[in-house]
C-alpha cells in the first residue's frame, strides 16, 4: 500500500469557528516524511476524534498542535498551525505558555511522584496563576471537581498521586491539565490503559469538558470515537483521508479507505 497521489481530503475538514487551524502541515523525521499536506480545523468547543491504523500519523499530528514534536531532535514541521490566528511555530512563541494553553493527556497516566494536591498545584504555581494559598486551594478543588475526582480524593489530598487506581490517576492527569486553565486539551489514547468503567467515566468527562474546552482525541477504539466526538478525522499513511460528522463517518463514510478501516477490513 502506498500514499495516494494528489490526494484531497474528503468531507468537511474546515470549521466556521476554528480554535486551531492547520494548513498544509508536513512532518518529517529526518528524511522520512510522516505527515503529508494535512489541512484541518479544530472548532471551538468541539471534540474531534483522530482515528486510523498504527503508524498513520494521527499521534504525530496531535503532537504538532502544542509543539510536543520539538522535543524530538530530528523532527521537522512544515506548513502553518495557528491557535486563535496566532502562528504557534513563530520563533517568538514561547512553548511553555503554549503548552499551558494547549494541554495534553497521555496514553498511560503519568502523575508526578508527589501528593494529589501537588500534582494539581504544580502547574498553577510555575505559571503564577495563584497569588495565595487560598487561591491555590480553590484551583485544586475546582480542577478535581471538573475532572470528576474530587469526591473520591478530597479526604486524602496529601496522599501520593501514584497510590490512586489507573482510572483515578488518569482523571488526576486531566485535572492537572485543567488546573492551568487551558483552551485546548489534546488526548492521546487516554483510555487505552483503563478498564471499561474507568473508560466510561473519562468519556463522560470528555463530554462535560466540551462546554469549556476544545478537545482533540486520538483513539484506537472506533466505538470510543463514535461515542465522544462530533467530527471524526481518518488518517492513513500520513494523509488525512476524510473528515466528516461522526455519525456520518460510522454509517456512510465517503472514502473507500475510511470504510475499509472502520469495518475492520484492514488495520
Amino acid at each position, binding site marked *: *500500500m502506498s500514499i495516494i497521489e494528489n490526494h484531497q481530503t474528503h468531507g468537511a475538514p474546515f470549521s466556521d469557528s476554528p480554535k486551531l487551524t492547520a494548513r498544509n502541515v508536513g512532518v518529517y523525521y529526518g528524511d522520512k516524511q510522516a505527515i503529508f499536506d494535512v489541512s484541518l480545523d479544530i472548532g471551538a468547543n468541539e471534540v474531534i476524534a483522530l482515528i486510523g491504523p498504527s503508524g498513520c500519523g494521527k499521534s504525530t499530528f496531535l503532537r504538532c498542535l502544542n509543539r510536543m514534536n520539538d522535543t524530538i531532535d530530528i523532527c521537522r514541521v512544515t506548513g502553518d498551525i495557528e491557535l486563535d490566528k496566532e502562528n504557534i511555530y513563530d520563533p517568538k512563541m514561547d512553548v511553555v505558555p503554549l503548552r499551558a494553553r494547549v494541554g495534553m493527556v497521555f496514553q498511560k497516566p503519568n502523575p508526578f511522584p508527589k501528593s494529589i494536591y501537588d500534582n494539581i498545584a504544580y502547574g498553577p504555581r510555575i505559571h503564577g496563576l495563584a497569588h495565595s494559598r487560598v487561591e491555590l486551594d480553590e484551583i485544586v478543588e475546582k480542577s478535581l471537581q471538573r475532572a470528576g475526582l474530587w469526591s473520591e480524593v478530597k479526604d486524602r489530598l496529601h496522599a501520593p498521586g501514584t497510590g490512586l487506581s489507573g482510572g483515578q490517576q488518569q482523571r488526576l492527569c486531566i485535572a492537572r491539565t485543567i488546573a492551568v486553565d487551558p483552551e485546548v486539551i489534546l488526548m492521546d489514547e487516554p483510555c487505552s490503559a483503563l478498564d471499561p468503567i474507568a473508560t466510561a467515566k473519562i468519556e463522560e468527562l470528555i463530554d462535560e469538558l466540551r462546554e469549556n474546552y476544545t478537545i482533540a482525541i486520538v483513539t484506537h477504539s472506533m466505538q470510543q470515537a463514535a461515542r465522544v466526538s462530533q467530527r471524526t478525522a481518518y488518517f492513513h499513511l500520513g494523509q488525512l483521508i476524510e473528515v466528516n460528522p461522526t455519525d456520518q463517518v460510522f*454509517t456512510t463514510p465517503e472514502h473507500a479507505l475510511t470504510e475499509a478501516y472502520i469495518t475492520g477490513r484492514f488495520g
Partner: protein
Amino acid sequence: MDMNFNQHISGQFNADLEAIRNHMMGMGGLVERQVANAVEAICSGDTRIADDVIRREDEVDQMEVAIDHECTQILVRRQPAASDLRMVLAVSRVVRDLERIGDEASKIAIHTLEVSDNASSHLCQQAMRYMGAEVVKMISGALDAFARHDVDGAVEVVRTDKRVDQQYASALRELITYMMEDPRSIGQAINILWILRAIERIGDHARNISEQVIYLVSGTDVRHSSLTEIEEKAATKE
C-alpha cells in the same frame, strides 16, 4: 491499491454477515412461493393449496425470529459500522416485511377458503390474477436487487408498486359497482375486497424491501418518500 477490501480481518465476521444474507434470501424464497401459491389458490379455487399456505405460515414466522436473533448477535459481538451496519439493519428490517408478506399470503388463503364454494367467486378475477402476478414479481425483484446491490432494480420495484396501487383502486371501483347493482353480493364482495387489499399490502412491503436496498447501497434513507423523490435520491447517489 493492493489490498482486498471485500474481506474482514475476522473470517467469522464475514461468515456471520454472509449467513444473515443467505438466510434472509431463503426466507424471501419461501415467502415468494407462499404468495404465488395463495394467488394460485384464489384463482383456481384449489383449497388444498390454500391449506398448505396457511400451514406454512408458522415456518415464515420462525425464520423471522431466527434471523433477527442472528442480527442481534452480530450487533452485540461485532459492533458493525458503515456498510456492515447497514447490511445488518437492512436485513433486520427486510425480514420484518417478509414476515408481514407471509401474514398477508395466509390471509389470502383464509379468504380463499371462504369464497371457494360460492357462485360469485369470479368477481374481480382478472384484477386478482394481474395484481397477484405483479406482486410476486415485485418480491423477487426486490430480493434480486438486494443480492446484487442494484439500486435501479429497487427503483423499478417502487414503480411497479405505483401501478399495483392504481390497479387496486380500479378494482375497488368495480367491486362497488357490483355491490350497488346487487346488494346480495356484498358479503362476497367484501371477501374479495380483503383479498385485493392483502395483495396491495404485499406490494407495499415489497416496496419497503426495495427502499432498504437503496439504504444498503447508498446509505440514503428513502422511507416515506414519493416515487419521484426516490428516483432523484437514487440518481444522485450513483
